[in-house]
């Protein structure tokens, strides 16, 4: 009952559609996530190769992919790897690289907040840039599938772990993913989403501010701070300009 009140309240506040969580919904997300997961698998192979070179065993690389589920952070972490492991640097860098997930998780609240907590908190374990993007795209265009994030996350997770094992095992046999254009999959995915998110003139200001802030921070600050800075600046521009 309390849960129903809660979702009814969120429904009013956010004016979003009701979502449901079904096995069919998980399958739909799984199928929709598959082409993107193939692109991610190209990076899983690279991660496996790099992790092996950094001194992790195949099993350790697989455990990292299965539990951390964050490609950019994992690649940065194994670049820092040494003997003994600089644990503080590795863990704090992981946190910094992944700070953008705080904002991305917040953006899922209107829909995932309607689910039972166990389902919502299990779903967010499986979110990464690519399936977050797919899910938010689907939900914003009116999908009632609250299991989309979990389904697309599962296919991503499976291929991420499997491709990590392939890369760590095959090592140097694998070439550069750029040779197959796989380095462009994430960019193409985000551009496709941008095309869908565009709401005409009202998107112009927050997007210009986000782009300008991201470019400025990218030029001045090493690392991935530009994503967080750009996103916050874009949202802040909207908050400041809001006129009811």
């Amino acid at each position, binding site marked *: 009952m309390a849960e129903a009140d809660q979702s009814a309240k969120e429904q009013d506040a956010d004016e979003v559609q009701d979502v449901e969580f079904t096995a069919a919904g998980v399958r739909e997300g799984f199928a929709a996530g598959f082409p993107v997961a193939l692109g991610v698998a190209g990076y899983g192979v690279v991660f496996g190769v790099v992790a092996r070179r950094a001194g992790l065993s195949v099993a350790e690389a697989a*455990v990292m992919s299965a539990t951390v589920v964050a490609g950019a952070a994992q690649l940065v972490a194994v670049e820092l790897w040494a003997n003994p492991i600089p644990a503080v640097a590795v863990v704090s860098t992981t946190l910094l690289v992944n700070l953008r997930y705080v*904002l991305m998780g917040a953006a899922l609240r209107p829909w995932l*907040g309607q689910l039972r907590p166990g389902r919502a908190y299990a779903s967010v374990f499986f979110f990464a840039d690519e399936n977050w993007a797919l899910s938010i795209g689907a939900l914003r265009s009116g999908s009632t599938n609250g299991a989309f994030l979990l389904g697309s996350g599962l296919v991503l997770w499976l291929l991420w772990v499997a491709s990590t094992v392939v890369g760590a095992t095959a090592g140097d046999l694998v070439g550069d993913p750029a040779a197959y254009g796989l380095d462009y999959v994430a960019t193409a995915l985000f551009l496709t989403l941008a095309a869908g998110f565009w709401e005409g003139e009202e998107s112009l200001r927050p997007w210009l501010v986000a782009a300008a802030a991201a470019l400025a921070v990218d030029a001045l600050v090493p690392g991935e701070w530009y994503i967080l800075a750009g996103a916050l600046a874009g949202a802040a521009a909207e908050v400041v300009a809001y006129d009811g």
Partner: protein
Amino acid sequence: MVDLDPAVVAVILAMAAVTYATKAGGFWLLGRVDLSERAEAGIDVLPGAVVVAFVTPVLADGGVPEWVAAAATVAVARKTGSLLASLAVGVGVVLAVRTLV
């Protein structure tokens, strides 16, 4: 065969814990605070702002192949609305133009 060093696994699990905290943290926090309409307007533009902040520096660092492929990707996305089509066109065009320039 399975070669797991406890010290390595401990660091990996610490990485997993902070990562999950970021993924669940923003979601959890928004369920605990009552947002004004003004703040909600900001949250509302967040997905677009994240996407734009993600992709702009990547494109700025790229060259002609990435820009041509970006234009093709957006054009196909707007025309067809099909993710598979726009991904295929984006990757295909970037490969093709890279071999030309």
